[in-house]
C-alpha cells in the first residue's frame, strides 16, 4: 500500500516537473518572440520577414476560410434550433435571433473558429517546422547565422494573431446568418423581426470581447504550435507525435484561457 502510494506520488512529482520544464521552455520562446518582434528592430536587427509574413497570412486565410464558414454556419443553425426549443416553452421564440447573435459573438464564434484554426493551421505549423527540424533545415538556418525565431516563429505567430480575429469576425457573421436561415425557414419567424431582434440585442462590447478573446487564443495557438515544431526529436514519428500534442495542447489552452478571459470580462469589465 505504502509502496503504491509512494509510486503514485513519484509519478505525480515527475509529471509536474516535466510540465514545469515545458512551461519554462514555452515562456522562453515567448520571450524570444517578444524580443524579435519589438526590441530587435529597434536595435537595428531584422525582426519580421515581411515576405514570409504575407505568405503566411494568405496561406492561413485561404486554408481555413471555407471550413470556418461551414462550421460557424452549422453552429449558428444548431444554436437557433436549440434556443427555440427552450424559448418555445415561454412563448418567446421571437428572441431566438437575440440569443444567437449574443452567444455567437461573445462565445461560440471565437472558440469554434479558434479550435478549427488550432486543428488546421496549428497542426500544419507544427508539422512544417518539425519536419524542417528533423531534416536539419533549422540547424542550417542557425549555421548561416540566421536565428530561427525571427525567421520561422515571428511571421507565423503574427500572421495567426491577425488572421484569427479577422476569421472570428467573419465567423460571427456567418454564424448569425446560419441562425437567421433556420429562424425564417424552420421556425417560421419573420425576416425583418428576426434581424431587428438580432441587432437590437447586440452591443459593441459583445463583439469586442469576442475578438479580444480570439486574439489571446491566436497567440496561444501560435506559441504552442511553433514551440512543439521546434522541439521535435526523432524523425517522422516525432513529427507525428508533436503535431498531435500541439493540437491537443492548443485546444486545452483555448478552453482554459477562455474561462479565465470570460471571468475577467465578467468581473473586472462588467
Amino acid at each position, binding site marked *: 500500500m505504502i509502496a503504491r502510494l509512494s509510486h503514485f506520488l513519484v509519478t505525480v512529482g515527475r509529471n509536474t516537473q516535466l510540465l514545469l520544464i515545458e512551461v519554462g521552455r514555452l515562456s522562453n520562446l515567448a520571450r524570444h518572440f517578444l524580443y524579435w518582434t519589438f526590441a530587435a528592430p529597434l536595435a537595428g536587427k*531584422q525582426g519580421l520577414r515581411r515576405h514570409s509574413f504575407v505568405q503566411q497570412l494568405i496561406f492561413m486565410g485561404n486554408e481555413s476560410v471555407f471550413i470556418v464558414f461551414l462550421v460557424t454556419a452549422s453552429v449558428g443553425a444548431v444554436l437557433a434550433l436549440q434556443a427555440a426549443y427552450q424559448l418555445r416553452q415561454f412563448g418567446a421564440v421571437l428572441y431566438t435571433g437575440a440569443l444567437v447573435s449574443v452567444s455567437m459573438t461573445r462565445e461560440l464564434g471565437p472558440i469554434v473558429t479558434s479550435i478549427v484554426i488550432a486543428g488546421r493551421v496549428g497542426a500544419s505549423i507544427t508539422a512544417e517546422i518539425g519536419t*524542417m527540424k528533423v*531534416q*536539419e*533545415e533549422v*540547424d*542550417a538556418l*542557425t*549555421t*548561416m*547565422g*540566421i*536565428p530561427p525565431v525571427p525567421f520561422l516563429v515571428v511571421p507565423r505567430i503574427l500572421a495567426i494573431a491577425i488572421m484569427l480575429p479577422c476569421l472570428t469576425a467573419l465567423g460571427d457573421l456567418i454564424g448569425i446568418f446560419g441562425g437567421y436561415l433556420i429562424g425564417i425557414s424552420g421556425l417560421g419567424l419573420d425576416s425583418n423581426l428576426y434581424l431587428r431582434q438580432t441587432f437590437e440585442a447586440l452591443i459593441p462590447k459583445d463583439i469586442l470581447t469576442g475578438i479580444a478573446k480570439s486574439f489571446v487564443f491566436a497567440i496561444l495557438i501560435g506559441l504552442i504550435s511553433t514551440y512543439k515544431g521546434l522541439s521535435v526529436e526523432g524523425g517522422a514519428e516525432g513529427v507525428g507525435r508533436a503535431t498531435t500534442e500541439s493540437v491537443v495542447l492548443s485546444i486545452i489552452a483555448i478552453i482554459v484561457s477562455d474561462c479565465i478571459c470570460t471571468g475577467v470580462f465578467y468581473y473586472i469589465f462588467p
Partner: protein
Amino acid sequence: MSAVIQVENLQKWFGTRKILDGINFEVREGETLVIMGGSGCGKSTLLRTLVGLLQADEGKVLIFGEDMAHASEDKKNEIRKKFGMLFQGAALFNSLTVGENVALPLKEHTSLDEEIIRIIVKVKLELVGLTGFESLKPYQISGGMKKRVALARAIALDPKIVFYDEPGAGLDPITARVIDHLLMDLTKKLRMTSVVVTHEMNSAFRIADRMIMLHQGKVVGSGSPQEIKESKDPYVQQFVRGEINGPISFKETKEHYLKSIFGGDVGL
C-alpha cells in the same frame, strides 16, 4: 601557414556520458582537414560543437581567433557569416526554389540589389555545375544535385571555411566522387579551408591534406594521409583497413552496452 581554427581541450558531455574528451587540433589556412572515425566516436558532435549548434562544456573553439564556445548568440552569428556548412542531408528549404535557397544568406546578410543577388546565385550554381536550375524546387532534383545546391548555398557569402558533414553519404560512388572533386576544386579555386567529417576511407584519402582520427571522444591519430596509412597505432590501422578484429570491438557485452548508454557504473 597560420591556423584558422584552433580547438583546445574541448569537452562535451551528454548527461553523464563524455562524448568529447579533451580534443586538441588546429586547421591551417587553405588546407583540407578530414576528421574520421567510426560510428559513435563523437565526430558529428565535434562538428556540431565547432559550428556552435552544441554548446561546449569545457575548452575553446577559436575560429579566426574568436572563441565560438563562449561567445554570445549575437557574436556566434557574426562568426558564422565567415563559414559555410554542408549538411549530410543537404538541408535545403523545400518551400524555396533552388535559386532562393542559394540567395537566402545573401538576402539575409547583405543589402545587395535583387539583380546582383540573381547574378551571384547564377555564378555560384555554375561553380557547382548546375547552370539554369534556379527555378526548380528541391524535390524536383536528385540527391547529388541537392548536395551541390547546398554547397552553392554554403559558399554564397564567399566564406573562408566550409564544414562538410559526410559529403558522400547516401550518394552513388560516381556522384560521391563528383562531390569530392568539387570540394577539392573549390578549396583550390576559392582558397578556402575545408573541414570534412567522414568515415569513407577512399574519399578521405583522396581529398585530405591532413587527417585526424577520433575514437571514443579522443584524437587517436593525426597526420598526412601517408602518415595515417603508415601509422603503427592499432586503432588507426584497424579503421583504415576496415578489419573486424582489433582494439575497436563490436562484440560488446551487456555490461559494456549499458555502460555506454548510462555511463559510469550501473551496478550489475
